[in-house]
């Protein structure tokens, strides 16, 4: 603590003030104006005074005690005039909300053991500066927000909440955390405290998130405390997947892409392990801001856990590893309910589709049978294609409707129109991958309107012709026109020439590949941290347990008939799905997030319309002690008064 003095007096004022102590001393030691009193005899008084002079030192001290006290009062007053003080940590404010980023990038080790530990340390320091009457709350966030401690004036509770924040491999999204904080800081919705006054929002983060657009701070006064360094180097694995060899489909290949997020050339080595045993190795050199892809040939691998490890000297180890789980392939169970569609059946019978799917045919009449309905309800199929028919109830499976819409709310059809012109296709969707529909003509179609959340895959001048929409863990695909129809006396009448175009069998392969349970074109299964994983039931009446990379076992509850959902994908690594004690499935959770791998801390952030600059060091304020000094002087004055009166008390 560096003591500071603030001179507020002029030289002549100091001169006058400086004369006070010597004046006191002079007055004290000058002969006191004693009141003369005539007494019969001073004989006994002399004797009494002499007796009292036995303890000379103490007597001198007592005699001069008042002098010392008076000098002390004057000294304190002069010191108070100088307004001594020191710079100290400012109190965070009456109401403060601590937002602590615990996303994957906060595990970078460029400051201390990790950025998260540093953020917690800084937050704890702010908590320690809180004074009585001030309340605070703690919110930890990654891509979701968690209120660790609601508003409290207990610093112990706040400390406990902060110290209990653990790291996460999830990406960063500050919007939800801001909304939670805003909801609690808004006086109209606050239930705990009266926050008609602004609340300080302390954000401890590296700024690795997209600016939350459309968010209004309202009563929040943001303080951004960037944690980490700007000049950090990091090379990370941003993608890894396993696919069938293009020319030798019986073999698998692993693709690993690295990216350099630093400002310097990075070199290193990439090791590929299978079940912990190194199977391949590659060296790489990546320029600043560039990517580098490495391909590993895996041969005729049928199952296993692949672990890619990049050995680089950087501060962020989380993206230096990636996993892929290769599970034994399972054929998709596809049911085609059709009154007869040779083109579709032919496309579903190609060698490529047969390798990944088992096709079952059924006529629309079977939908009326109870037995068939039970099969559909039991989730025995991965994909059910309804060609010109509708079930009474939607099956527990992905579906495709040709010329019909699902019998559930949300879907709608417009009026039938002829010769629609295809205007646009969504090539980014896996179903439309590699498709070129430029040579596809349609005679007539009934444009469809997908429910909210649906996605138009093929759009035309009359409306959507192909759309997909999620439904409770499944997806429903709807084609707005029939492919062909058997017309009495005319034979097969085609409504489109698509079935004879090259894109049709490719579309059917994509359909089976995508909607047949999972993308089986590649054999590796990988999810991003925070993603929800849908798992198939191993069988009627069976339960599943997921074992995380750290060994924690989480039992799952069946969310839908035959499906289990798993959301605790915070840890990076390989998860095992257990049916009893038998591992029935594996999947991997990876970071694969360039935004998180780019660990260069942002010096400022944008929240809504507000640009918030980072505050590196804690706010300081000057704490003066002049009041304390004056109070001390008054106290000494009281003591002096007491001593004086005590001495002369009769």
């Amino acid at each position: 603590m560096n003591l500071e003095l603030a001179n507020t007096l002029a030289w002549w004022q100091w001169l006058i003030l400086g004369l006070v102590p010597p004046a006191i001393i002079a007055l004290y030691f000058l002969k006191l104006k004693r009141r003369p009193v005539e007494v019969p005899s001073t004989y006994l008084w002399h004797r009494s005074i002499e007796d009292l002079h036995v303890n000379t030192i103490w007597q001198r001290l007592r005699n001069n005690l008042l002098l010392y006290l008076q000098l002390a009062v004057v000294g304190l007053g002069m010191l108070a005039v100088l307004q001594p003080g020191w710079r100290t940590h400012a109190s965070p404010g009456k109401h403060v909300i601590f937002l602590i980023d615990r996303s994957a990038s906060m595990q970078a080790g460029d400051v201390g053991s990790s950025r998260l530990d540093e953020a917690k340390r800084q937050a704890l320091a702010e908590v320690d500066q809180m004074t009585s009457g001030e309340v605070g709350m703690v919110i930890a966030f990654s891509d979701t927000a968690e209120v660790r401690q609601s508003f409290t004036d207990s610093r112990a509770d706040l400390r406990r909440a902060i110290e209990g924040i653990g790291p996460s491999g999830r990406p960063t999204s500050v919007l939800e955390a801001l909304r939670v904080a805003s909801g609690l800081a808004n006086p109209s919705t606050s239930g705990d405290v009266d926050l008609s006054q602004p609340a300080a929002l302390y954000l401890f983060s590296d700024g690795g998130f997209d600016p939350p657009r459309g968010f209004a701070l309202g009563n929040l006064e943001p303080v951004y405390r960037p944690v980490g360094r700007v000049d950090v180097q990091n090379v990370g694995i941003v993608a890894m997947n396993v696919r069938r060899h293009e020319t030798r489909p019986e073999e698998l290949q692993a693709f690993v892409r690295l990216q350099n997020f630093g400002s310097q050339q990075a070199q290193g080595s990439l090791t590929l392990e299978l079940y912990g045993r190194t199977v391949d190795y590659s060296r790489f050199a990546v320029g600043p801001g560039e990517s580098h892809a490495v391909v590993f040939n895996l041969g005729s691998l049928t199952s296993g856990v692949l672990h890619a490890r990049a050995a680089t000297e950087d501060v962020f180890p989380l993206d230096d590893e990636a996993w892929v789980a290769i599970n034994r392939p399972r054929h998709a169970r596809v049911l085609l309910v059709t009154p007869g569609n040779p083109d579709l059946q032919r496309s579903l019978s190609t060698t490529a589709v047969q390798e990944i799917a088992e096709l079952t045919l059924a006529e629309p009449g079977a939908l009326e049978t109870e037995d068939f309905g039970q099969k559909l309800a039991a989730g025995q199929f991965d994909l059910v294609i309804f060609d010109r028919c509708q079930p009474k109830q939607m099956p527990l499976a992905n579906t495709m409707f040709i010329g019909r819409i699902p019998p559930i709310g949300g879907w709608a059809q417009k009026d039938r129109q002829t010769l629609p012109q295809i205007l646009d296709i969504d090539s980014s969707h896996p179903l439309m991958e590699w498709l070129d529909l430029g040579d596809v003509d349609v005679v007539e179609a009934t444009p469809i309107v997908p429910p909210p959340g649906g996605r138009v895959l093929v759009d035309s001048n009359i409306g959507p012709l192909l759309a997909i929409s999620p439904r409770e863990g499944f997806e429903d695909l709807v084609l707005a026109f029939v492919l062909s129809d058997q017309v009495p006396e005319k034979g097969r009448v085609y409504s489109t020439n698509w079935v004879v175009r090259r894109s049709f069998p490719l579309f059917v392969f994509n359909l089976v590949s995508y909607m047949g349970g999972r993308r089986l074109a590649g054999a590796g299964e990988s999810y991003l941290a925070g993603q929800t994983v849908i798992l198939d039931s191993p069988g009627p009446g069976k339960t599943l347990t997921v074992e995380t990379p750290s060994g924690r076992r989480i039992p799952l509850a069946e969310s839908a008939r035959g499906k289990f959902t798993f959301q605790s994908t915070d840890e990076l690594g390989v998860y095992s799905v257990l049916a009893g004690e038998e591992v029935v499935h594996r999947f991997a959770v990876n970071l694969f997030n360039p935004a998180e791998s780019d660990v260069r801390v942002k010096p400022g952030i944008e929240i809504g319309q507000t640009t918030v600059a980072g505050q590196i060091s804690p706010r300081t304020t000057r704490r003066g002690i002049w009041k304390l000094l004056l109070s001390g002087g008054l106290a000494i004055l009281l003591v002096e008064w007491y001593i004086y009166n005590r001495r002369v008390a009769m």
Partner: protein
Amino acid sequence: MSTASRLLSPELLAQLERLELVSRKVFRGRVKGERRSRRKGQSVEFADFRSYVPGDDLRFIDWNTYARLERLFLKLFLEEEDLHFYALVDASPSMDFGQPSKFHFARQLAAALGFIGLVRGDRVKVETLGQPPGRLAPVFRGRRSLWRMLDYLEGLRPEELVSLVEGTKRFCIRNSGKGIVVLLSDLMDKAGYEGALRYLLAQDFDIYVVQILSAEEVDPDLQGDLRLIDCEDHDVAEITMTAALRRRYQQTLSAFVGRAREFCTRRGIAYFLVRNDVPVEQIIRGYLRERGLVRG
């Protein structure tokens, strides 16, 4: 108010008439008084015989003894003598303190004790320690001398700057006779009181010391920073009155009084400590009578 009533009230006089001074010693006086003396003199009470020598009074020849023994013997009778009472008053300026002043109190005591002596036919003499050498104090005898004695006392002033030792020394030189000496003083002499009392002891007086202190001396009402000035020698003592000093002063006073009492007691001197705020009649009728100076 007349001088007499200022020193002695009529009620007190009436009470004092019934008292008499008591001496622990039987002394030889100059005039025949009411007191028995060991001296054989002329009175009605036969005491003893002695052989006749030419010149003796023939009226006292015991003719019965001559008839038997054919020798001349003279009858001897007990002498009735008067008591010499001396009131030795300290008239130093230090006695002029208090309400009433110690000096006035001393005069009252002297007047009271002197009146008792006058009523009993004692020879009363009132002197001050600073009595001028060439000027003798008057002797008072008989009730008729009361007013002269009171006038004399009233004329005394506490202005004599003489030490106790010197004053008693002079007194002893002036008064070689025996008797009762009542020293009325505060004994606050920086030269001490011991020497003065030794002079009186040497004279074989029946000594009574009445130390008179004022209430203000016993319990001084002083506060603050003071310059105490001795009224006699103008000695200065600068004090800051504190509770501790006050306690110490009282302890010192108590020790001083205690030493004086012990000194007197060891030497057969009757010691009395009186305060000026106690009525004289209470002292005489109560205190002094209990202690044996007066009886009646």
